């Protein structure tokens, strides 16, 4: 730096670059955030009174597929089941926990199979084969009569979450 004037110039320039640059980066980051309308994307109610045993139905919640499977009596009960009256349901987000493909339900084997990289899950959503590192996730739900409301955390969901059965 040849003299004080140059130094003052660079110092002021540097200072404004920092106080202008950091907020600008923050603004850019915020512009990439999901919009409030997306975040608030509502709740989905699923009436399970007409569900058929061992037949998968796929609903949509926040753009994601939701698996609802009414378990037949010969299927193993699991802590992750949603219990309504005397019926047990497997409810999960239908995206493979490996990289997010939708596994297909093979009803005579009682298994979910993911075509993308060969991952498999049992009828309670536990990973049994291949790269998936964790069970199918359970969406926040609340039981309301024979209806499951997705997006709201009911007591049954909170219990599962505390027990570490889902994230």
């Amino acid at each position, binding site marked *: 730096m040849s003299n004080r004037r140059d130094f003052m110039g660079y110092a002021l320039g540097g200072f404004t670059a920092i106080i202008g640059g950091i907020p600008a980066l923050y603004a850019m980051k915020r512009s990439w*955030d*999901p919009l409030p309308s997306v975040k608030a994307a509502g709740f989905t109610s699923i009436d399970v009174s007409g569900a058929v045993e061992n037949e998968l139905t796929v609903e949509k919640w926040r753009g*994601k597929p939701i698996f609802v499977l009414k378990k037949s009596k010969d299927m193993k009960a699991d802590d992750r089941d949603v219990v309504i009256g005397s019926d047990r349901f497997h409810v999960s987000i239908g995206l493979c926990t490996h*990289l997010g493909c*939708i596994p*297909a339900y093979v009803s005579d084997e009682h298994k979910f199979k993911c*075509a*993308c990289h060969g991952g498999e899950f049992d009828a309670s959503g536990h990973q049994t084969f291949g*790269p998936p590192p964790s069970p199918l996730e359970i969406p926040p739900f609340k039981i309301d009569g024979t209806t499951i409301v997705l997006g709201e955390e009911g007591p049954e969901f909170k219990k599962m979450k505390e027990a570490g059965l889902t994230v």
Partner: protein
Amino acid sequence: MAHFEKANSVGEWFDQRLAINTLKRVLAFEYWIPKNINFLWAMGMVLAATFGMLVVSGIFLLMYYQPNVDLAFDSVNYTIMTEVGYGWLWRHIHGVGASVVFLIIYIHMFTGIYYGSYKKGRELIWLSGMGLFVAFSAEAFSGYMLPWGQMSYWAGMVITNLFSGGSLEAYGLVEWIRGDYVPAQAFLTRFFMLHVLLLPLVIIGLIVLHFGTLRIPHVNNQDGEDIDYEEAARLYKEGNVKDSKVIPFQPVFLAKDIFVMGVYFILFFYLVFYHFEFAMDPVNFDPADGLKTPAHIYPEWYFLWSYEILRPFSKDLGLIAFAIAQVIFFALPFLDKSPNVAPASKRGLFKFWFWAMLIDVLVLTFMGKLPPTDALFANIGLISALVFFALWIALPFITKIEKKL
């Protein structure tokens, strides 16, 4: 103000204001190219020309494409393909160009590896080249999202999920990249922006840098000979063209480049008119459906080798392996410890390293296309992935003990 004389010609008028004669001399008429090179050295200009084709065809596609999740699919498959006059031509040029550009990039890269054109002053050529490879990969991926078919959607889903970092479970980051819980409108519009503006700007900047990094070290030659450019240039300018080891870029070398480009474009347009389907995945002719995954998801052929490195491992290990594979080629100039700039055939063990690497990447590419369920192929994939890493680990050792030529 600088002093200006009256100009006697248009050329002089520009030269006074822009020094174009100096520019022409430094960048073209006295930019010396060795005589001892072959057609593989034309690949760089072939790439530049292909990029030009992508830009021009892209501009015409842009006139009718609609970046909207409800309209995108039809704007491409209906409007551009059936209504717009010659719209199919631009689409086929764009699709074929995007695929072929990777073939040429791989040839260009392996040429550089074979002749050792990445060291002794040429490191920046290599690094800027790898920058171009990464930028082109991002450009190809973002473009693949735009028709909003089934493969667009599910490739978008799987690739953005990679950013969750496995057990790090950074789903917030994934949602931030997408602007939504799943690929949807926000995702499509931002990838549209990346594809048509930001990434092309980055690519153009990197091409300028890549060319700049070539100017001082000059291109390598078939024997890795360290040419005395001043001496060679003097001979050439004195008229002793025969004894000089170099020719000027313009007009002599360019004539050869243009010949190779001519052959290339005949093949290119043969593909555009008669075999465009290899660049158009049939699954992507179904509109995006977030509730149905296609039976078998695989990327375009040029990503298969790194995809196959992801597949055979557990989730975390797969991600780490994949991340390393994506960037390891950047490290080549620093992992090759031998001072020799010479064709691989003269470099002892490196010769085997080169062919092993080339074959391994080809095997990975073929395995990546097969469904994940066949045990035999899955094992071949796993072994090739392990060989890939073993080769990189071996590189510094085998080049360290290489005899100096």
